[in-house]
């Protein structure tokens, strides 16, 4: 117990992803790609596959490396440091996890190798305009017709959808709008008839879409897992995604903290480096503590993803609250200590600030997760 060290393979993964990003993912490239079309790089995605990043958490028999949450954490922290644009979480963490966990044998053998090899990009269409952070608040309906379903509804802010080959879509197959039962998960071809998209860039340089489904015809083979029983599945998948994004936010926060300290050591005012002023020193120490506490929470949630549902949810919510608060504090402080240059588009800092700020609004913000955490049974004090 109490071992936080990486295995040899994990250490290798960490080094190779860091080296690859240092060579291929500079801030200038990030800015150029995020502002151009199509807003991501397929060749980089293929290189991720060659490095084993896309298959890191996919079972070996399906072309992956058979890793788990720790591998995802390693990759995502590095991605956070480099502001990676490619849709890793929806493709690998959400779709890879759902298909690997409850997909049919046909779905596994069709999709998992394609994910690992970089031949498939999958987006996660779960949010709806009226639903806020409630995963069960679904206006999108899949009605039974013959042996299949007909899908109608609208999905909001589907990250990576403009270049996705397929979509994981949550829809109601029975019950009332917010019922826990009656939620189903479908894997839908991104070019299926009846899908229309409005694509747009996000504040942090990603691409997303508003998606309308109009009488999209599905068969039962599009269903991932059992009909009507999808909510626990997507809760589990989104908790995995939360852990991954917390690691990403950690990577971004570390960059903000490091560059702020660097700046405070070199920027002179009143004849001395501004890092000599105690009021700024203490703020930077508070940033340091927020980042370290976040690093602890990333480990915590990563190591608890395999626990039973209540413990896993508490862990994910706790991590999301910590990272949400820390992200805001570290980002705002970093900009403040940089002064005027901190609010310019030219400096990388602001782009990290944006990435971390936006992540709070994904899969539930601080308030949402505080409420979810408080609603779950307290874990007993010591054992």
């Amino acid at each position: 117990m109490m071992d936080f060290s990486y295995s040899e393979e994990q250490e290798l993964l960490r080094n190779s992803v860091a080296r690859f990003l240092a060579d291929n993912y500079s801030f200038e490239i990030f800015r150029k790609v995020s502002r151009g079309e199509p807003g991501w790089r397929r060749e980089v995605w293929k290189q991720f596959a060659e490095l084993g990043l896309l298959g890191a958490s996919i079972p070996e028999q399906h072309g992956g490396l058979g890793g788990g949450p720790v591998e995802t954490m390693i990759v995502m922290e590095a991605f956070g440091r480099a502001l990676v644009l490619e849709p890793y979480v929806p493709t690998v963490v959400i779709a890879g996890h759902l298909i690997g966990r409850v997909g049919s044998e046909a779905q596994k053998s069709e999709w998992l190798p394609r994910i690992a090899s970089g031949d498939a990009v999958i987006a996660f269409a779960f949010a709806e305009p009226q639903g806020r952070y409630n995963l069960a608040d679904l206006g999108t309906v899949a009605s039974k017709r013959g042996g299949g379903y007909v899908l109608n509804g609208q999905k909001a802010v589907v990250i990576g959808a403009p270049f996705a080959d397929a979509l994981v879509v949550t829809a109601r197959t029975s019950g009332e709008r917010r019922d826990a039962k009656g939620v189903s998960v479908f894997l839908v071809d991104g070019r299926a008839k009846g899908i229309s998209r409005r694509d747009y860039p996000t504040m942090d340089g990603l691409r997303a879409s508003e998606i309308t489904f109009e009488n999209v015809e599905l068969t039962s083979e599009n269903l991932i897992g059992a009909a009507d029983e999808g909510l626990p599945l997507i809760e589990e998948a989104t908790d995995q995604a939360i852990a991954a994004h917390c690691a990403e936010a950690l990577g971004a926060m570390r960059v903000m903290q490091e560059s702020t300290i660097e700046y405070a050591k070199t920027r002179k005012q009143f004849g001395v480096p501004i890092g000599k002023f105690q009021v700024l020193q203490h703020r930077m120490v508070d940033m340091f503590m927020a980042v370290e506490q976040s690093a602890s929470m990333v480990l915590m949630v990563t190591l608890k993803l395999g626990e039973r549902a209540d413990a896993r949810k508490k862990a994910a919510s706790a991590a999301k609250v910590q990272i949400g608060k820390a992200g805001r504090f570290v980002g705002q402080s970093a900009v403040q200590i940089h002064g005027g240059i901190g609010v310019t588009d030219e400096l990388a800092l602001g782009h990290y600030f944006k990435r971390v700020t936006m992540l709070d609004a994904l899969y539930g913000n601080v308030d949402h997760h505080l409420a979810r955490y408080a609603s779950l049974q307290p874990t007993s004090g010591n054992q």
Partner: protein
Amino acid sequence: MDLTFSPEEEAFRAEVRSFIADHLPAHLKGRIRRDLGRKEDYLAWHRELYRKGWVAPSWPKEYGGTGWTVTERYIFNEECARAETPPILPFGVSMVAPVIYTFGNEAQKKKFLPRILSGDDWWCQGYSEPGAGSDLANLKTRAVRDGDHYIVNGQKTWTTLAQFADWIFCLVRTDPNVKPQEGITFLLIDMKSPGITVKPIIVLDGVREVNEVFFDDVRVPAENRVGEENQGWTYAKFLLLHERSGIAGVARSKKAIERLREIAAAEQVDGTPLIETDEFARKVAEVEIDLTALEFTELRTLAAEAKGKPPGPESSILKIKGTEIQQRITELTLEAVGTYAYPDAHAFGDNEYPVGPENAVGAAGVYFNMRKASIYGGSNEIQRNIIAKAVLGL
């Protein structure tokens, strides 16, 4: 990466738990939480652990340590907190003893360590002075060499439980003509020495927790100097770092949150338990989440320690966050008890029922008392200075 306990570690936990169940007298359970307790309350538990050989888990085995792994020590602390045992006071076991076995000579080790272990000697800490708080190196208590003795004159303050103490370890000035840090010596002084006067200081909850200690021509044998003359600052710094592990108080804070939940479950707001109101439930959730982060920060430190990396200045984070959380819990507990925060618990005699619900007793006192936590042991602002300088390089 792994956080699961091995079967051996689980068996160890069971052993500790049953030992505590069998040996902790019922009247001592939670006693120190309710008030400061009597000397005998601390010593009773100290002696139980001494008889078992468990009083100083962090010491090297040759001096009476347990030889436990970092994980076993962690489990032991958790179980003590869970059972609300009296604490083992740090001044002897975890402050002066490591200085003695690291820097002291053989005679000192032989003379002092066994009596610290057995509880025969009660130690207190002579660091702070009226003019040397955060600026500790500015201390003025003077020790002048006179043959085989030092003559000590001056005053120490904030000396915790000095009224019970047999010995005091002191930082004294032996050279006033050099940089403040370079003229300090570490002395062990018998509290029965002629010329020592102890005066009580009453703190916010009305108890005598700390004292002033006056030295008036006190003769201290030179053999009671630890290490070299004028090297005391080095030993003091060593002690400060050594004391970091455990300072987070995670296990005891978990217990305190459990009690806070009980109180808030019994309090009613318009017929609803306070703990079920959104506002209060979220406040409790927030502090619990903070504590979870701190727990893993401590685990990371311990895991590094298990691999041979001694705690560094970054462990100041454990002191800052640990005390902030402890204070926040006392604040929420004070809020939770409502109007019954008012009665002064000390106004009721030992054999008298206090007014109000049992769990409200002392809530306000503990809140006021715990304001000390962000001040002692190097104030949280000083801790931030340490991190700024030693970790961030500012």
